[in-house]
C-alpha cells in the first residue's frame, strides 16, 4: 500500500473537487431519497384511507390548519439565500487561502505529460476512450448525453411525482437517472482520476504509479475470437452482433417499462415516437456498461469492424 502515492493523487489541488464530489453526491442522494421515502410512506397512508386523503395537505412536513400556505419571500426566503451566500463565500475564502491553484511547468509541446488527463469533469469521456473509438466516446456519446438529458421531460410520461420527492411513484425514472449519472458518469470520472495512472493503465488505489510499469493485454475483436477474419463477413457479423445486442437490451428495457400495472399505465400514455426515443437512449446508455464488461473482463476491443468505423 503506497500511501504517499495515494496522498499525492488525492491531494492534487485539481482533484480536491472530485474528493468533495465523492462525499457530496452520496450525501445529497440520501438527503433527497429520505424525503422521497417519507412522502411515499405518507402517500401509502393516504391511498389507504381516502377520508384522510381529502383534507390532508399532502406533504410530510408538519402542518396545522391555519398556517399560511405561502410565506413572504422577504424575509423568509431571502434570509436563507443570504445565509447560503455567506457560507459559500466563507468556504471559498478558506479554500482559496489554504490551497493554491495549480501552476505547473510552462507548456512544452515536446514533453508529453504522462498521464495526460483532461479536466476532471471530462475524465468520464476520456475514460470512455478505452471502450470506444474517439468518434463515439468523444463526439457521439457527449452529444447523445446532452440530447438524452434534454428529452427526459418528453420521454417521461409519468404525470405523478411532479414537484415533490417520491420514489415509489417514479421508481423507474429515478433508477435510470441514478444509473446514468452516478454509476456511469461519476464512476467513470472516479476511475479516470484515481485509477488510471501513467500510460492510462489500471492502478488500484494505493498502487504505485510506476512509469515503467508494463502490462500484457491482447485486445482482440469479437469476430476474431470467433474466427471470422474476412471482410465483408466481419462487418456483417458485427452488424448482426450489434443488432442482437440492441434487440436484447430493447427487450430488457421493455420489460422494465411494463414492470407492473402502474408502469403499464404510463406505457399506455406513450406514443410510438416516445417509445422509440426512450428505447434508443436506454439502449445506447446500456451499451456503455456492456462494452466496459466486454473490454475489461473479456478483453474484447471491437464488436463491429468495418473499413470506415469500428464499434
Amino acid at each position, binding site marked *: 500500500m503506497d500511501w504517499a502515492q495515494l496522498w499525492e493523487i488525492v491531494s492534487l489541488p485539481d482533484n*480536491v*473537487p472530485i474528493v468533495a464530489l465523492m462525499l457530496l*453526491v452520496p450525501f*445529497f442522494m440520501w438527503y433527497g*431519497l429520505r*424525503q422521497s421515502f417519507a412522502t411515499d410512506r*405518507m*402517500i401509502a397512508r*393516504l391511498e389507504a384511507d381516502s377520508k384522510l386523503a381529502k383534507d390532508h*395537505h*399532502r*406533504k410530510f*412536513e408538519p402542518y396545522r390548519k391555519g*398556517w399560511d*400556505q*405561502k*410565506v*413572504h*419571500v*422577504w424575509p423568509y*426566503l*431571502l434570509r436563507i439565500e443570504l445565509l*447560503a*451566500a455567506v457560507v459559500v463565500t466563507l*468556504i*471559498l475564502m478558506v*479554500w*482559496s*487561502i489554504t*490551497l*493554491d*491553484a495549480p501552476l*505547473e511547468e*510552462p*507548456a512544452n509541446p515536446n514533453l508529453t505529460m504522462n498521464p*495526460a*488527463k*483532461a*479536466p*476532471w*469533469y*471530462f475524465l468520464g469521456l476520456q475514460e470512455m476512450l478505452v471502450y470506444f473509438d*474517439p*468518434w463515439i466516446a*468523444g*463526439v457521439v456519446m457527449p452529444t447523445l448525453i446532452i440530447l438524452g*438529458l434534454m428529452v427526459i*421531460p418528453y420521454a*417521461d410520461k409519468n*404525470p405523478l*411525482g*411532479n*414537484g*415533490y*420527492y417520491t420514489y415509489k411513484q417514479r421508481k423507474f*425514472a*429515478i433508477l435510470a437517472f441514478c444509473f446514468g*449519472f452516478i454509476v456511469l458518469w461519476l464512476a467513470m470520472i472516479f476511475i479516470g482520476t484515481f485509477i488510471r495512472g501513467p500510460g492510462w493503465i489500471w492502478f488500484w488505489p494505493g498502487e504505485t504509479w510506476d512509469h515503467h510499469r508494463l502490462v500484457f493485454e491482447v485486445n482482440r475483436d469479437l469476430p476474431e475470437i470467433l474466427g471470422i477474419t474476412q471482410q465483408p463477413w466481419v462487418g456483417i457479423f458485427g452488424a448482426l452482433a450489434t443488432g442482437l445486442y440492441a434487440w436484447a437490451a430493447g427487450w430488457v428495457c421493455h420489460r422494465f417499462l411494463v414492470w407492473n400495472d402502474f408502469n403499464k*399505465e404510463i406505457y399506455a400514455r406513450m406514443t410510438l415516437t416516445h417509445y422509440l426515443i426512450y428505447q434508443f437512449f436506454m439502449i445506447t446508455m446500456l451499451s456503455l456498461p456492456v462494452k466496459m464488461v466486454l473490454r475489461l473482463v473479456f478483453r474484447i476491443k471491437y464488436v463491429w469492424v468495418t473499413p470506415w*468505423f469500428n464499434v
Partner: protein
Amino acid sequence: MADEKSREEKTPVEEASEQAEKKSPNVIVRIKETVLPFIEKGKEDVRAAQDYKKSQVWKSVFRHQLDETPRNRALAVLTNVFLHLHPAKVNRDAVRFRFTWGMGGISFYLFFVLTITGVFLMFYYHPSKGQAFQDIQFLENDVPFGGLLRNMHRWAAHLMIITVWLHMLRVFLTGSYKTPREFNWMVGVILLVLTMLLSFTGYLLPDDQLGFWAVTVGTNMARATPLLGHEGPFGPELGMTPFNDVRFALLGGSIVDANALLRSYIWHCIAIPLILSVFLAVHFWRVRKDGSISGPSPAVLESELKKVRK
C-alpha cells in the same frame, strides 16, 4: 422649540431697528421688509425637515414603509430591481433548504463571484504565449491578493460545476422537469454544458503543462468527429485534413498554440459568458413564469391518476 428658533431669528432685526432709530426711520422699514420673508421661508424648511419621510427626496427613493406589514413585505421584493426575480410569496415549504438544496441559487452566486474575480484577473492577463505564464507568476508574487483572486476563481469554477450537477440531481429527484417546466429543463441542460465549457476554456489560459495537455487531450477527440474530423468516420472521405477539420476550427491551428490560447481566452471571457447569461435570464424568467419553483407541491395519488382513454 420652533418659536425659540424664531426668536433667534428676530434678534438681529431688533438690533438693526435700534440702530436705525438713530439714523433715518425709512431705513428700518426697508430692512424689515426685506429680511422678514426670508425668515418665513426658513421656518418652512425647518418644519419640513422635522418629518423628512414626507419629503420629495425620500419619497422618490423609498416606495413603501419599512414596518412589518404584509404589504410592505411584498413591496420590498417587488419594488427591488435585484429581488424582483422572486415572487412576493412562495410556497411555505419551498423556503426549506431540505427541499431546494439551494443549489440553483448557489450556482448563480458562484457565477457572479466568477464574473467579478474574472474581471480582476483580466486586468493582469495577456493571452499570448510566454507572457501568459509570466502573468500568472506575476499574479502570485506581485499583485495584492492576486493569488487569492486566482485561487478563488479556479475553485469557484470547480465548485460551480459540482453545484450545477447537484442542482440537476435535485430537480430530477423532485420531478420538477415535468409539465410545465420541460423547456426550462432543456435550458438548464444547456446551462450545464455551457458551465463545463466555460471551465474547460479557462483551463488552457495559464499556459502551463497541466492546461496544455488537458486541452490537447480534450481537443484531440474532436479529430475523430464523424464527417468533420480528419480521423473520424468518413472524415477523410470528405477531404478532412488536420488543417481544415473541426479541431482546426477550435484551436485556430493544427496544434495547441498561440491561436488556441487566444481563442480559448475569447471564448472564456466574452463569448460563453454572454451566451450563458442570456440563457440564465431565460432560465430565471421561466422559473417565475412556470409558477415559481416547482414545489413542494401536494403529492398526487395513483388513485387520482385519470385513465387515458384508448
